[in-house]
């Protein structure tokens, strides 16, 4: 038998109990730390999720003003217009709700359901620009 294996098997009972105690204590203190530091009140500007029937997550944290500034007033980057699956350059759609085109489910008129439209538009742009949140809970911060 390999020496490191032998050492493991013949370790005393006292040692084992201490190991278990240490592990349990460690887990408990980690849990306590989590509970204490979890409470934190904050106000965050969010997207309104009224268009979704029963959203599982709170509306994404989003500052319209910051985005206008970062995108040099080019509204059409987010408020885009697609015709027959093709992006119409220069056209913008600020007067419409996202959900006017992006229905909740895929349909012949709409290839991109509302949830995926938001996720792809926000996340892919953040990835492309190397800037902004990209993980689920970075936008859908718990209320």
């Amino acid at each position, binding site marked *: 038998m390999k020496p490191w294996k032998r050492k493991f098997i013949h370790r005393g009972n006292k040692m084992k109990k201490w190991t*278990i105690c240490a592990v349990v204590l460690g887990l408990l203190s980690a849990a306590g730390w989590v509970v204490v530091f979890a409470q934190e009140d904050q106000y965050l500007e969010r997207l309104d999720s009224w268009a979704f029937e029963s959203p*599982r997550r709170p509306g994404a944290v989003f500052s319209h003003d910051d985005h206008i500034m970062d995108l040099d007033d080019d509204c059409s980057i987010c408020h885009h217009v697609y015709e027959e699956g093709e992006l119409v350059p220069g056209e913008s759609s600020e007067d419409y709700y996202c959900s006017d085109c992006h229905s909740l489910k895929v349909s012949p008129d709409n290839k991109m359901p509302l949830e995926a439209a938001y996720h792809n538009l926000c996340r892919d742009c953040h990835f492309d620009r190397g800037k902004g949140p990209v993980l689920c809970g970075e936008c859908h911060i718990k209320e």
Partner: protein
Amino acid sequence: MNSFIAFIMGPMVWISAIIFVGGLLFKGISIIQSVRQKEPYIFSYMTVKHSLRSMGAWLVPFFPKSTRLRPVYYAISYLFHILLFVVPLFLASHIVLINEAFQVSWPALNDGLADWLTLLVIAALIFFAVRRQMVPEITYLTSAIDYLLILLVLLPFVTGFLAYHQWFAYRWMVVAHVLSGELMLIIIPFSRFSHMLTAPLTRAYMGSEFGNVRHARDW
């Protein structure tokens, strides 16, 4: 940082999936080949009927005699193995990612329920670790690698639980979650986790030998 996340949630998922599937395939093929070389007569009494009968018998909870001898352990083990697959595969957040990548989707577990089931998986893993310390005949068969493997399964569930609750260091928790999940997939073909492939092979062999040679049951 975003490009690192893009890598571990993009190409790295493919790399680990390929190692996972390819590794298991390679393992399966090499097992069958080595049987063909060393003990080809086994195939003379292997039958589909006896193989499936044995697998079926061992899939019914507490049907095999030896599972009734250790009911607590087997109850936890059954539950653990089901949840190990059900919780990640039917988790809403995972389904959203799969839907956006492949445009396929299926019903998801309620988040609150999934949260409790995750805790059950974690509890079961802690039970397995403690059992290895407490039961002498199992301690005798245990080496450091067994605890390491338990830790490897524990990690994606613990980090996933903490990430869902967004309690602290969310970004790092998700990175740890993704990486530990991928590590687990990669390790499967090269560790005892490959029993997800070899366990059915064992049942096929035992079922055929007991059923077709000894005319006995193997459960």
